[in-house]
């Protein structure tokens, strides 16, 4: 397969590059204590929530943007960002009340809500910009005692739960971006699964960035009470835009005794154009705690979007016999940069963690796996297995692996394997010889390479993810 042949592969553009023309309510750009107060006031928050934000804001002023990642982060002017935007109309009660423009947007994304409801039994909590527009299935879930609502609603209706668990996994002062989020977060999702309940459907949220120059600061909190189970899906696509957009989310998961939480993400924010112009800066703090004995948390992510990704979904294995998993596919193309991985902190006895990371780099992109496995002194019989594979599709991209291990207990078994390979030209020719174009061949081969991770996704997500991998890599191999 020659360079020429590969260059002939069609140059495809980001398919979700459109903006929805919806009136939005934006507060002026810039960040100050007054802006924090304004956000809180607009959301009609109680005093304790405002205090939480102000404390975070004041701490944030003392912090610096982290520089340890394998990322080239342009200067971000935090005063040129608007920190709040909300669709102006009141939140609709059913689909008929939803802005037709918004529905059209979902159609383009292939996630029409009617279809979602009928076909997959997914409850969709749509976050359009910063405010929750629509929650479905809430009533049927409520009958089981399950709470699935926007974060704002949770602050209003379930203040005890929010106050008890918010920032219990990601402390306010955790890191620059988490602290910023704590000061200005707009909205997000809240989930509580009561004792002994298996949530009967996948809970799902779609995120979109939709207002010019608006940072998006979601906050999600999932609490699985004893002996409960929930599978949560987060997926997003963002419209094309020239200015870089900042995205700094927090996701916290709490799994109590014998509870299980599966969290799956397909991340497809606008990655910027072929020359590296534009794109979303995605600085996410995701962390779960296996708080109770025998609890389980698994993170599965397919990362294809964003100009910059800084993201380490992590687990604190506090309960004895608890277990955690991290399955990741991260694809970078053109000038995208991703520094992503996980932290597994073993504290309880007989805890196990499993890491499987598949990096795919193309074009001029940089793709790093960064992982930490820490076995605390009291974590007897801890086990970890990490497998980190990198696949290179060009000569000009980079793949890096930074596995850190801190083992302070002699009974621990920690294993790490890593491989790096280049896409095999013989495989592509073999496909060509059977009538499959190079572009489709790359799609097949890459999906095969990532299969172990894709298989961990819920069905409806797996199909979408496979398409995304191929779309992301179109026009890239060479």
């Amino acid at each position, binding site marked *: *397969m*020659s360079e*020429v*042949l590969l260059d002939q592969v069609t140059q495809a553009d980001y398919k979700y590059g459109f903006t929805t023309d919806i009136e939005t309510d934006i507060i002026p750009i810039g960040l100050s204590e007054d802006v924090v107060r304004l956000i809180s006031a607009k959301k009609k928050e109680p005093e304790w929530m405002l205090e939480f934000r102000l404390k975070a804001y004041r701490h944030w002023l003392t912090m610096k943007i982290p520089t340890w990642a394998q990322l080239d982060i342009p200067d971000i002017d935090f005063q040129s960002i608007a920190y709040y935007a909300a669709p102006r109309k009141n939140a609709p009660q059913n689909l008929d009340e939803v802005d037709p423009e918004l529905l059209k947007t979902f159609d383009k994304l292939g996630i029409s809500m009617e279809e979602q409801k009928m076909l997959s039994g997914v409850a969709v909590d749509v976050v359009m910009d910063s405010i929750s527009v629509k929650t479905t299935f809430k009533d049927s879930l409520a009958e089981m005692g399950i709470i699935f609502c926007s974060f704002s609603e949770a602050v209003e209706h379930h203040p005890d739960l929010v106050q008890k668990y918010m920032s219990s996994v990601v402390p306010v002062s955790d890191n620059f971006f988490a602290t910023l989020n704590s000061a200005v977060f707009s909205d997000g999702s809240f989930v509580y699964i009561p004792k002994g309940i298996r949530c009967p459907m996948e809970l799902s949220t779609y995120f979109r960035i939709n207002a010019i120059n608006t940072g998006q600061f979601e906050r999600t909190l999932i609490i699985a009470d004893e002996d409960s189970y929930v599978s949560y899906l987060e997926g997003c696509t963002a419209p094309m835009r020239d200015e870089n957009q900042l995205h700094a989310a927090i996701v916290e998961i709490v799994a109590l005794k014998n509870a299980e939480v599966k969290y799956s993400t397909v991340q497809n924010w606008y990655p910027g154009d072929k020359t590296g112009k534009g794109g979303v800066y995605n600085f996410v703090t995701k962390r779960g705690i296996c708080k109770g004995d025998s609890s389980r948390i698994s993170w599965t992510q397919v990362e294809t979007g964003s100009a910059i990704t800084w993201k380490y979904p992590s687990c604190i294995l506090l309960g004895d016999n608890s277990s955690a998993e991290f399955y990741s596919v991260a694809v970078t193309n053109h000038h995208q940069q991703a520094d992503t991985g996980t932290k597994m902190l073993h504290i309880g006895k007989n805890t196990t963690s499993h890491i499987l990371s598949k990096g795919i780099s193309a074009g001029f992109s940089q793709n790093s796996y960064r992982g930490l496995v820490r076995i605390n002194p009291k974590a007897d019989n801890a086990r970890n297995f990490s497998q980190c594979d990198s696949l290179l599709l060009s000569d000009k991209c980079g793949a890096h692996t930074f596995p850190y291990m801190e083992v302070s207990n002699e009974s621990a078994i920690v294993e790490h394997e890593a491989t790096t390979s280049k896409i*095999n*030209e*013989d*495989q592509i*020719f*073999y*496909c*060509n*010889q*059977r*009538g*499959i*174009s*190079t572009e*489709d061949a790359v799609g*097949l*081969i890459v*999906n*095969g*390479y*990532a*299969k*172990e991770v894709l298989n961990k996704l819920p069905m409806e997500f797996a199909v979408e993810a496979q398409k995304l991998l191929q779309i992301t890599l179109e026009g890239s191999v060479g």
Partner: protein
Amino acid sequence: MLEIKNLHANINGKEILKGLDLVVRPGEIHAIMGPNGAGKSTLASVLTGNQAFEVTHGDITFYGKNLLELSPEDRSREGIFLSFQYPVEIPGVSMVNFLRAALNEHRKYKNLEPLSATDFLRVMREKKTLVEMDNKLANRAVNEGFSGGEKKRNEIFQMAMLEPRLAILDETDSGLDIDALRIVANGVNKLKSPDNASIVITHYQRLLDYIIPDFVHVLYDGRIVKSGGKELALELEERGYDWIKKEVEETV
């Protein structure tokens, strides 16, 4: 259907094919024999459009079309199939997905609708039976962890699925035990029709006991230096290639 005229081809600047001529008509089976390194696989690669090889002179037409102008995938869709000497593994890609993609590309090329999942699986079942392909293999990833013989059998299975007009079998017999050889040859014979043709590249006369060729050609040093009927294969089996080499050197 296939006409090769004065074909010269290089790899990495080294000339491998040095003026090769060959005409194949529908219904014919051509055997190409020759010592190691003669250029047999190179011919297969050039016919299928492997870009590692550069054609410096000559023409190839396939049903009147200039083959050299077609991409490898279009050559496949035109009905040229290569059973690879060394089939590659594609980890994680199921045979079903792979063949479905391939078959539907062929159909699209002919302006046919893609096959539904059910129809596709039915065709797959039929062809599996035809070439005595193990169910287990068909459910695995493409060639992943297959033994040498299993890979070869899988090539014939894919050939049955794609129903080529011209099949090129590159040493499909090597590494096969006698039973597998019989199955492969049976598969080839069952797929034979007055409309399609085969080029069977082989080292040994053994395969030609099962697949009876209409013509036998000897490829040596980048050229076809001798052609004959099936008895030529027997003669080669008996006498080796040295006498051919001598003949060639004498004429030079």
